[in-house]
């Protein structure tokens, strides 16, 4: 592997553009062998890094979950708080993801097809949730909708509780997963072009018809990809939801919050089991993403 390391140093004073001739001693066979050794070295380093950082820990959590057999796992899965957390997570996803899908397509259309003042600002606004810490997202929502927040008095006067209840958790989830649909749809929309839309229009289609029959079928895989990413993020969101939920057991506890709760209450099996459920959902997401790349050319095929 290191056979070429020494040679490189000697070259540095050479004038740029002139590359030194190959080492006189090395025959073609030796060069091949060195190249193969280098390749193997790089492969070992890259795969070793992935194995230590990613693969081994993920496999370990499956082992830890099932090391005492299936019975404790079953009782952990059927624990009332776990079941409640699971359904609450799904409920939040069921509200936040459709909202972000509809508005995400709208934002993508506006950013790609619209011409208006402040377009750059809108683009920035949409990307902002990616640059902000989830904790900060939670904080900003408390500052607007919390009891001492901007709308706190008004909301309390109308008997609406946002922070420390489900509406706040839905909003927090929607914020952190906001950019995905728009960002995945925009490049597809750009590639699609406006030709067919214009053709539809000249043929007398209304804007609504053009959208449903021409634009949407053209961008559907981009949208679906965005929806998959949105769902994965929404299911797993922790920081923002943690702040606005108040973390009341059996009431405002989503599955990720339940994982933390079990861990901190010295119930590793409960924590590992819930974590494995979430990890399996993540793996399903990966599988879906993989299958979708056949329809979109967004990701690099290998």
């Amino acid at each position, binding site marked *: 592997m290191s056979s*070429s390391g020494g*040679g490189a140093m000697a*070259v540095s004073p050479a004038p740029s553009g002139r*590359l*030194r001739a*190959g080492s006189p001693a090395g025959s073609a066979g030796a060069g091949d062998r060195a*190249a193969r050794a280098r*390749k193997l070295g*790089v492969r070992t*380093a*890259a*795969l070793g*890094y*992935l194995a230590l950082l*990613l693969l081994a*820990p*993920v496999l*370990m*959590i499956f*082992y830890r979950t099932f090391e005492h057999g299936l019975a404790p796992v079953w009782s952990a899965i059927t624990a009332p708080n776990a079941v409640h957390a699971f359904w609450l997570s799904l409920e939040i996803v069921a509200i936040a993801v459709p*909202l972000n899908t509809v*508005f995400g397509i*709208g934002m993508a259309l*506006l950013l790609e097809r619209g011409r208006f003042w402040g377009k750059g600002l809108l683009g920035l*606004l*949409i990307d*902002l*949730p990616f*640059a*902000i*810490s989830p904790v*900060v*997202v939670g*904080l*900003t929502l*408390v*500052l607007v909708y919390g009891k*001492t927040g901007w709308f706190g008095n008004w909301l309390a006067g109308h008997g609406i509780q946002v922070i420390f209840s489900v509406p706040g958790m839905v*909003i927090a989830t929607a914020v952190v997963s*906001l950019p995905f649909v728009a960002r995945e749809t925009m490049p597809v929309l750009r590639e699609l072009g406006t*030709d*067919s839309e214009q053709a539809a229009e000249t043929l*007398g289609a*209304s*804007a609504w018809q053009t959208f449903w*029959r021409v634009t949407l079928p053209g961008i559907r895989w981009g949208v679906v990809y965005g929806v998959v990413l949105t769902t*994965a993020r929404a299911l*797993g969101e922790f*920081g923002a939801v943690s702040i606005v939920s108040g973390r009341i057991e059996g009431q405002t506890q989503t599955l990720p919050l339940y*994982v*933390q709760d079990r861990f*901190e209450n010295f119930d590793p099996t409960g924590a*590992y089991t819930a*974590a494995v459920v*979430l990890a399996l959902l*993540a*793996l399903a997401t990966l599988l879906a*993403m993989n299958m979708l790349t056949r329809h979109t050319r967004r990701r*690099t095929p*290998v």
Partner: protein
Amino acid sequence: MSPLQNSPGSVALGPRRAPRVGARGAGALGKGLLGIYLSALVLLPIAALLAKSSSGGTSAFWREISSPEAVAAIKLTLAATAIVVVINAVFGTLIAWVMVRDDFPGKRIVNSLIDLPFALPTIVAGVVLLALYGKGSPVGVNVAFTRASVGLALLFVTLPFVVRSVQPVLLELDLSMEEAAASLGARPLIVLRRIVLPSLVPAILSGVALSFARAVGEFGSLVLITGNLPFKTEAGSVYIFGQIQNENLPAAAAVSVVLLLAALVVLGSLSFLSRRASRHVL
């Protein structure tokens, strides 16, 4: 903008209808709803954050971010992030290289597993790392409640960024330049330094920028594994969380603004550098 090529025939449409006015009204309604949605979710909350952080004036803001615990947390976050993005730049490029130029059994599976940290909930990332590198570790490595755990968690959650930004560029890279250099007798390291790396720098920088922004704000994966010990393993985001729990919102808002600015400055300057670097190549 685009050349007007008529591609009729492919579109089957119903009978002609004319009510354009209704469509325009619907468009305006959609824009209005979108405006309300974005205001409620992003614009107003960010405005509230800025207002809160500046409500006590500059001196109050300064006092909040210069409290010893806040300083320690911000320092830890920035230092850990700096180390993590450098490691990401090296190993991310290496992994991208192997995924594009190398071939081995199971490569497709490995390639899709690289996205796992994006799909895995952050709290699960913390649990996963604890299962192997925590108390009772089967490999005898226990990083729980140490500063190393901060770096480990950040490395895990930011793993895909550099790989995924370098990979497409490497895939498009023209092999003939490298072959020409090699046939002229350039050693592999020279080819790497003079030909391959210069074309990859913009992609590496944009991956690093995304990693930086993500690492500075990371929270979920740190909560369990770092133990959140003030002055030792408490990262910036965890400090903010603590201040919110203590109802000390001005302190939380001030440190939030600092972290947000750090992320935006790095994102902005690296995207500038990356654009400049890409202009020098080809």
